[in-house]
């Protein structure tokens, strides 16, 4: 019931932020159906950075920096609801633990990682040290892991911890530039990142540390999301969503919205939640 807003068809699709809008591109197996791309949410005047999807309640969550806040809306065209509006300076990445019903976000001015229930209650700071420019954050709910990137120009890194902030470790720190985008594919247990400094896309198994390059020559990756064999990232230079076939190690498609301005966060909205048990369920 909003302007230029359309209920989403069933099936998996991509959600990404561009200039006060959250856009949607349906996926036909792995192909972006560019002709059916639509605006799910139009928030004129807002600058939306991070987007995340809750597959249980079919809600999209986003961070916004003009009046720093975290909000959510049903992707079938529901009205936006403010979840967090105080004590935020520059919220960027956001991630949902669809099993534990919590959300995590980075704040690049407070240099914090915080957690709260999906309604904004039970909020607390999870990580508040050794962060300079925290950006992307992602969850691996079945294993209870959290991953985030920090593009600190002097010492960029990718880190992990449990979802309660304990067992924090640096996973990657060498040969990084500006690791803006991060994604975790639970099927292959691969953590992948897109770097706007080295212009590379790389992946590794967080447990094994077997880092490998997927692609070189990316232009300016910002957000990133994995779906099956594909990885999709937003590019600041091309103002486009770029699809990369992980196995063929090459770009397979590009979607350039009509509006020519920067694209920010991107996430995969699954038709159904991935199967998997909460790591706490057995305990």
């Amino acid at each position, binding site marked *: *019931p*909003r*302007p*230029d807003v359309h209920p989403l068809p069933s099936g998996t699709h991509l959600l990404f932020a561009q*200039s*006060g809008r959250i856009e949607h591109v349906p996926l036909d197996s792995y192909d972006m159906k560019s002709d059916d791309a639509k*605006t799910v949410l*139009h928030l*004129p*005047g807002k*600058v939306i*950075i991070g987007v995340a999807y809750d597959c249980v309640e079919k809600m999209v969550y986003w961070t916004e*920096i*003009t009046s720093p806040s975290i909000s959510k809306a049903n992707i079938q065209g529901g009205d936006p609801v403010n979840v967090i509006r105080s004590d935020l300076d*520059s919220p*960027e990445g956001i991630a949902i633990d669809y099993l534990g019903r919590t959300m995590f976000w980075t704040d*690049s*001015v407070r240099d914090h990682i915080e957690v709260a229930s999906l309604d904004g209650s039970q909020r607390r700071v999870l990580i508040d040290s050794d962060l300079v*420019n925290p950006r992307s954050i992602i969850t691996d709910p079945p294993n209870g892991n959290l991953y985030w990137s920090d*593009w600190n*120009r002097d010492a960029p890194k990718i880190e992990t911890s449990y979802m309660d902030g304990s067992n924090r470790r640096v996973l990657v720190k060498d040969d990084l530039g*500006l690791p*803006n985008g991060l994604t975790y594919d639970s099927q292959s247990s691969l953590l992948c990142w897109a770097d*706007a400094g080295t212009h590379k896309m790389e992946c590794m198994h967080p447990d094994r540390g077997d880092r490998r390059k997927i692609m070189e020559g990316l232009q300016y990756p910002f957000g990133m999301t994995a779906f099956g064999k594909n990885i999709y990232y937003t590019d600041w230079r091309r103002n486009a969503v770029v699809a990369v076939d992980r196995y063929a190690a090459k770009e397979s498609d590009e979607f350039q919205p*009509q*509006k*020519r*301005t*920067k694209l*920010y966060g991107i996430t995969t909205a699954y038709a159904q939640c991935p199967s998997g048990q909460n790591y706490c369920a057995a305990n």
Partner: protein
Amino acid sequence: DATQGTVDDCSPCPCPTGATCAVVPKTREVVCTNCPVGTTGKRCELCDDGFFGDPLGESGAVRTCRVCKCSDNIDPNAVGNCDRETGECLKCIYNTDGFFCDRCKDGFYGNAMAANTADKCKPCSCSVFGTVGGQLSCSQVTGQCPCLPNVSQRDCSACELGFFNLQSGSGCERCNCNPIGSTD
């Protein structure tokens, strides 16, 4: 409303040339949906992230959207670098501060506008013992910390010649050496 059958059924979009618009069904509000490059907002009255201006002249003269002007003291990989209307810089780096990241932030001194980042803003590092009130800030330009009596150096870290006991925290005391038995 194109179904009323009058010449006024369709009104032009209240948007800059080239933009399209839509009506919010609930409120009947008209919102521009395809603002020109660099602009955004209900009426394309705002600048995109990383730009500032007043493209419709809503609060004065028309100022087209321009890239944030922050004395080269912002990082292009950051988001929300300046206020989209006033241009006030919000994410100064290299220890700079101010509307245009044009001065050193408190506790730092030097030349925020220097071309070389190493020459920009250095920490005052005022001596806790030799500085008035244990102050941590210094002169923006020279870096001189406010020294207690008989304390010298830029960072107030030493006693003047003929004085001792910097650690007292209330300035240095005269040595009172006997001129006959002392060298220097």
